[in-house]
């Protein structure tokens, strides 16, 4: 068994109630490291091609990483992988919290879940022992209530719970997995997959910590990070959360506003991190935000999570459900033309109670708002709900209706792309999606390399799959560490920026496999460099891990995803950007008139494929590339044979 791991993967078939424990060889751990790549290994091997993502044949893989549960910051991460019911492509989503570390302590590196239970169940995993238990009494409960009931039932306040809320039970296509009632594996609908299996929750508890090869070295790195934190760029993230970026995004003309029709929101200050800190964080009334209003993941010095409490007014918010991230502030806020931070925090609370991705939920409502404002949706469609931009009360109301699939919410629970396909009447032109996944709150119009990443990313548009353009100019020393030594001018959209996008994508992809937080180890949000990440992996495993090996790991994971998509019939045709980004210039502010040059984009997308070693006509990895990455076995399955 390698250092840093338990050496045990749990396999559960909910249809047969069969429980198996696999002990993979060291070579398996070295090749995939953990997280996403490890989950993809099982998804590719164990799920048949062409299935419905909500069918029992889908395989839900939950994996921690090699550093998970050690003392260093930014390591308690869990990746969920399955076929996505939102995109019909590979699904992939990360979250932090305490569940990932506790899963390791409970004796497993990951869980592979197949089949469908005949009635609602939950898994109880304690010190290497596993039970499938009845969850009928938990079904229908919101996350906070279900978690409290499990703690009481298992007579242990310190269990960690990963669960679905009513949205996952109702198969909302962007339902999330929730832990601590406020951390979400939000993207790509992993909660709907878990719901389709009648699996309500997984409770874990354990006392064993995997052995570390060089504890002294790891502790030295841990202390160095804690010492460097106050002067680091990530210090502000700790204090203001990701909400810190609202104001600079707006200043750059990159804050999505009115469903991506503008990058400038006149009321941005009202939804900013500073406003949340001053008025809404727990303890703000006593100037105690730093002690009361911040939360953390297991053993992390950054403490970037928000805790919002609102006691008065139309939108009271329970601090148990955390507080909004930047993405949530933007999607329920400026994206929808809403400037009421209390209402946004309430929408965030409902998403965490019901178990939904705030990005897809907010952006889907924004799509409906634009369609309504343009007359393509009517009061008859919405059941009498006025959905003009800025309709704050109705936005909050709709979040609940989506999670419970009530009225017009039932249509929006399908995600904006399926809703538009069903409604027709030209509503497709208002979509802001790639591979049917709603676009996060970072605008390719002001960060052009993101336009290709959003389109080509195997699990739909994602803002945490590559570094954003300005970092090439701003962090030359960090970029040089991964071979990027030719910073380009502002707004450059050229072949070197495609190389920047691909190389940083490989590093981000590695971070999602070794499974660490991008705010702590990312090239820009950096507390630790890529070299220090390699050092940490060396200290834990005893292997001679290098930055080059990490980049190859990231490339391997990306190619596994593309190969999976090829198997499912997705390729270049699905690598698209919303038409609006090519056709309509942004309105107002510093990005007035900005749009993406379609011809340049088409050429650079092909250039990106070539850089990746993929077939330019199909966007699919070549056999040579898969062999080079040590995953030629994928081509030996039906994955690429079908694509060919």
């Amino acid at each position, binding site marked *: 068994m390698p250092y840093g791991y338990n050496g045990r993967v749990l396999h559960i078939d909910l249809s047969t109630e069969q429980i198996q424990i696999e002990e993979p060889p060291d070579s398996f751990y070295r090749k995939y490291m953990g997280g996403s790549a490890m989950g993809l290994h099982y998804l590719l091997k164990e799920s048949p091609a062409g299935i419905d993502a909500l069918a029992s044949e889908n395989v839900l893989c939950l994996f921690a990483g090699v550093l998970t549960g050690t003392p260093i910051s930014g390591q308690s991460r869990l990746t969920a992988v399955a076929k996505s019911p939102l995109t019909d492509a590979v699904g992939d989503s990360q979250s932090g919290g305490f569940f990932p570390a506790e899963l390791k302590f409970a004796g497993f590196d990951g869980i592979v879940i197949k089949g469908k239970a005949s009635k609602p169940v939950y898994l109880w995993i304690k010190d290497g022992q596993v039970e499938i238990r009845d969850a009928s009494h938990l079904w229908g409960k919101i996350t906070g209530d279900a978690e409290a009931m499990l703690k009481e039932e298992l007579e242990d306040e310190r269990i960690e719970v990963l669960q679905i809320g009513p949205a996952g039970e109702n198969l909302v296509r962007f339902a999330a997995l929730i832990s601590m009632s406020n951390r979400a594996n939000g993207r790509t609908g992993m909660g709907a997959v878990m719901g389709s299996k009648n699996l309500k929750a997984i409770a874990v508890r354990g006392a064993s910590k995997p052995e570390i090869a060089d504890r002294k070295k790891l502790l030295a790195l841990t202390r160095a990070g804690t010492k460097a934190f106050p*002067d680091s760029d990530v210090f502000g993230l700790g204090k*203001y959360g990701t909400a810190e970026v609202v104001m600079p995004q707006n*200043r750059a003309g990159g804050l999505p506003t009115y469903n991506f029709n503008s990058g400038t929101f006149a009321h941005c200050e009202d939804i900013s991190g*500073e406003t949340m800190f001053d008025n809404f964080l727990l303890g703000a009334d006593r100037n105690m935000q730093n002690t009361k209003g911040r939360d953390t993941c297991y053993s992390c010095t950054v403490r970037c999570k928000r805790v919002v409490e609102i006691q008065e007014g139309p939108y009271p918010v329970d601090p148990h459900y955390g507080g909004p991230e*930047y993405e949530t502030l933007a999607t329920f806020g400026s994206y929808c033309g809403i400037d009421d931070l209390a209402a946004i925090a309430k929408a965030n609370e409902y998403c965490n109670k019901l178990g939904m991705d705030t990005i897809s939920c907010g952006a889907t409502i924004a799509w409906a708002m634009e369609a309504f404002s343009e007359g393509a949706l009517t009061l008859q469609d919405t059941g009498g709900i006025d959905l003009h931009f800025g309709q704050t009360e109705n936005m909050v109301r709709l979040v609940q209706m989506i999670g419970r699939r009530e009225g017009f919410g039932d249509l929006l629970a399908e995600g904006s792309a399926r809703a538009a396909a069903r409604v027709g009447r030209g509503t497709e032109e208002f979509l802001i999606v790639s591979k049917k996944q709603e676009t996060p709150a970072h605008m390719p119009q002001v960060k052009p390399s993101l336009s290709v990443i959003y389109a080509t990313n195997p699990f739909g548009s994602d*803002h945490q799959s590559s570094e954003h353009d*300005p*970092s090439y100019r701003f962090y030359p020393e960090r970029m040089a560490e991964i071979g990027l030594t030719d910073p380009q001018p*502002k707004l450059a959209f050229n072949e070197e920026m495609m190389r920047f996008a691909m190389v940083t994508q490989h590093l981000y992809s590695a971070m999602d496999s070794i499974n660490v937080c991008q705010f702590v180890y990312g090239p820009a*949000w950096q507390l630790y460099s890529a070299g220090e990440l390699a050092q940490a992996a060396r200290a834990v495993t005893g292997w001679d891990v290098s930055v080059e090996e990490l980049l190859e790991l990231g490339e391997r994971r990306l190619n596994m995803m593309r190969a999976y998509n090829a198997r499912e019939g997705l390729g270049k045709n699905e690598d698209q950007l919303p038409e609006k980004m090519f056709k309509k210039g942004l309105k107002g502010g510093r990005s007035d008139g900005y749009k993406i040059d379609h011809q340049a984009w088409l050429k650079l997308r092909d250039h990106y494929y070539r850089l990746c070693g993929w077939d330019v006509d199909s966007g699919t990895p070549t056999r040579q590339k898969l062999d080079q990455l040590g995953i030629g076995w994928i081509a030996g399955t039906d994955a690429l044979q079908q694509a060919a």
Partner: protein
Amino acid sequence: MQVEVKLHGVLREILPTAAKGRTQLQVEEGSTVADLLEQLAIRRRVLVAVNDQAETEPAYVLQEGDHITIFTAVSGGAAHHSSSRHF
């Protein structure tokens, strides 16, 4: 001469809490953005934007009545970083 300064994020802590990051500052004639950062003892990597600009170079010479906005470096929001500096 006098300029108006708006500090964001943790830079707000340079000023008393009640100021919420806003202040009027006296600077010497001919002062640059870089001089202003020295005067405020800002040691972090920052983005500076004067008046309606998205970003302003450190060598820019301040004018009477300028509105100067200063952000800390943040990845997702760092859309215009070139004028920033790291001490």
